[in-house]
């Protein structure tokens, strides 16, 4: 059964369904959280809060939309807030990538082709990236989400996703090269 159908049942009062949703997303969210924070206890607490928030706001979810970007959006906000608290920086810099349109193409064949090389770089150098670039690399290569889903999670234009991903790849390659030298 699709996630959206499960949420529809949840909205009608079938709370047992929530266990199935948790089963589907628990590992993903814990893995996602590890890209933001390092403390397992913190990550677990935040994932718990995410699930409770999903349950609490389940009646606000539009079941004609996809569930995955919605839960990732809640998780993104929770982890970013946690990161912000840890860095003691309440200031959110303005994202200039969202000002104008960028033409981008989400080509699955390109993704498949470069995936192997990128995964090697990601293993070596993901933690060397800034949170903005780290997150988009995680969502695209590890969580295997498309541009539109990532746009809905981060609430930015689709073009911004493409441009940010491009910059993240360049930054990652630079960092890996700097740390490990040329292959």
């Amino acid at each position, binding site marked *: 059964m699709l996630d959206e159908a499960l949420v529809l049942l949840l*909205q009608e009062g079938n*709370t047992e369904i*929530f*266990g199935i949703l*948790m*089963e589907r997303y*628990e*590992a993903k969210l*814990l893995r996602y959280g590890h890209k933001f924070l390092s403390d*397992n206890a913190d990550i*677990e607490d935040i*994932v*718990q809060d995410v*699930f*409770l928030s999903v*349950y*609490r*706001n*389940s*009646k*606000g979810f539009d079941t004609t939309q996809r569930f995955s970007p919605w839960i990732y959006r809640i998780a993104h906000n929770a982890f970013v807030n946690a990161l912000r608290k840890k860095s003691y920086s309440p200031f959110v810099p303005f994202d200039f990538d*969202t*000002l*104008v*349109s960028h033409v981008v193409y989400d080509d699955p064949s390109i993704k498949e082709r470069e995936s192997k090389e990128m995964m090697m770089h990601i293993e070596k150098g993901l933690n060397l990236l800034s949170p903005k670039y780290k997150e988009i690399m995680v969502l695209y290569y590890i969580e295997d989400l498309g541009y539109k889903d990532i*746009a*809905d999670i981060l*609430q*930015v*234009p*689709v*073009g*911004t996703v493409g441009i940010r991903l491009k910059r993240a790849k360049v930054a990652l390659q630079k960092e890996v090269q700097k740390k490990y030298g040329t292959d």
Partner: protein
Amino acid sequence: MEQTNTNIKQSLREKVLTRIEGNTIIVTSRWYFIARIALIGFLTFAALTLSSLLSNIIIFIIINSGRSILLGFGMRGIWSFFIFFPWLLLFVDLICILLLQRLLSVFKFGYRVPVLYLGGIIFVTGFLFGVIIHHETPFNKEIVHEGERHHLPGFINDFLHGAHRPPSAGQGMYRGIVQSIGTSTIIILDSDAGTSTQRTIILGIDNEYATTTGMNIGDMVFIAGDEREGSIYAYGIHSIDKDDFDEPHEVAPVQ
């Protein structure tokens, strides 16, 4: 390791499900989300209305005070136009637009469209509505007439008086009725200053923006120039239609 992870995961799942089954988690009612959307809709409408009204007021000030005429006086006129543009009102309008953008970012179309494009669309929409209010409705005329009858709060009356006058004398803009026309001078009766004042306007040589061509005694004119030794050295003169200006006249309040 996998066993430990499984234990952690079961523990997390159990914690959440226990809290749900214990009825300690209150599910937010659907009506809350409906009310939220309705509130956003109302605030969006209010912000767009305010933006339109601000655009209308800006247009009203620019046209009724004669500032729009400055654009026809060459580079100096264009520079003066920007100096005397009601920037504060435009700034408030931009704040409205930012607020509107923030409200709309709750929806997919709000965040999928780049910020500048959405801001531009909102600004143009508000501006167009402002133009429609000014040109196609009697809204501004009615406000002026209500002000004349003292039906509006004092600060609005003061604002309307100020919006009609060019920036105060000494800042380079004047308005008056032509009393006499000479070869290189004209005399006007300036009533914007409160009491009627005669002013001598000196016309420059070979200045295409400041000529008496087509001018008659009794015409109302708008003048841009520098005041020196009691005379105004004009860099731009333009005849204006008295009917275009809803000059506020004080009307005694009804007893």
